[in-house]
């Protein structure tokens, strides 16, 4: 599935909304020299086509002093990749799930409180899923950057 790319005006509108999406259509229209109707229609279209999502993001760590955990998952048989990845995508605690080539079959990323919490999460929620052969986890010690503007919009 290929999503339509944003054109220049779309990108300029998104650039304004990406730091403060409460900016009024009127303000954006006057900044970009287009009509308010154009801004409104384009935002509506981009949202409907799932090119953008306008949402509140919070800086409240899900856990105080939480660490990011990378969980690499290998499946029993290669045909199971899609099925296992779909199951993983339903786990709300996972912020990223991707089918990968190279290093392992699937990468899942979550935030945990500690090493113990990571072990518990992997054992209770991932290792037991049908098709999961083995997992390998890496615990982050310092979160340098995560650009919330880049996402995969699915819902």
């Amino acid at each position, binding site marked *: 599935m*290929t999503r*339509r*790319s*944003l054109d220049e005006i779309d990108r300029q509108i*998104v650039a304004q*909304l*990406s*730091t*403060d*999406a409460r900016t009024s259509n009127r303000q954006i229209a006057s900044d970009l020299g287009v009509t308010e109707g154009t801004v409104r229609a384009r935002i509506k279209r*981009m949202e409907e086509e*799932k*090119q*953008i*999502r*306008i*949402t*509140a*993001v*919070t*800086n*409240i*760590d*899900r856990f105080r002093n939480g660490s*990011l955990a990378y969980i690499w998952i290998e499946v029993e048989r290669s045909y199971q990749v*899609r099925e296992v*990845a*779909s199951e*993983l*995508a339903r786990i709300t605690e*996972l*912020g*990223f*799930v*991707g*089918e*990968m*080539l*190279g*290093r*392992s079959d699937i*990468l899942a990323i979550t*935030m945990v409180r500690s090493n113990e919490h990571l072990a518990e999460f992997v054992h209770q929620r991932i290792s037991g899923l049908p098709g999961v052969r083995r997992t390998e986890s*890496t*615990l*982050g*010690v*310092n*979160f*340098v*950057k*995560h*650009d*919330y*503007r*880049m*996402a*995969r*919009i*699915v819902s």
Partner: protein
Amino acid sequence: MSLASISSRQQPAAQIELDETDHRIIALLRGDGRLPYRSIARELNLTEATVRARVRRLEESRTMRVVAVTDIEAAGYGMLLAIGVQVEDRSPEEVGRDMAAIPEVFSVNIVVGTQDLEILMVAEDQAALQGLLHEKLATMAGVRRLTPALAVNVLKNQPDWVPFHDPA
């Protein structure tokens, strides 16, 4: 050191106490970031002025931001990679900071184990990817080895644990 410099913008979110009303405003804005103040006020049985003031307080304390999140594919990025980085002669923190300055590198984490850093990066196409990998990352001071994995299908990339940093 003066008090003013202690409470500079570089500080992580000021700890403000959130009450039930704040949480309900955040929940409504998570669902639709463009919801008019008037509608939020009506929904929560508050005045529009109260809602405006609450939202401003949440934003100014860096607790919440309402933003447009762009789909990576719609933004023109066809490829996403998870790259493990081994470092030598320089600290992972320094190398991580340099990598974080590259716009296509959207996540940088210092880890312990075989790799020193784990980064997530997008690229427009194969040519752009090669440029980023070989000319920007591989030649960066302190980078010993890059171990990339290519995502063929990203099912989910919508973390609710993002740290705020001021976009360039």
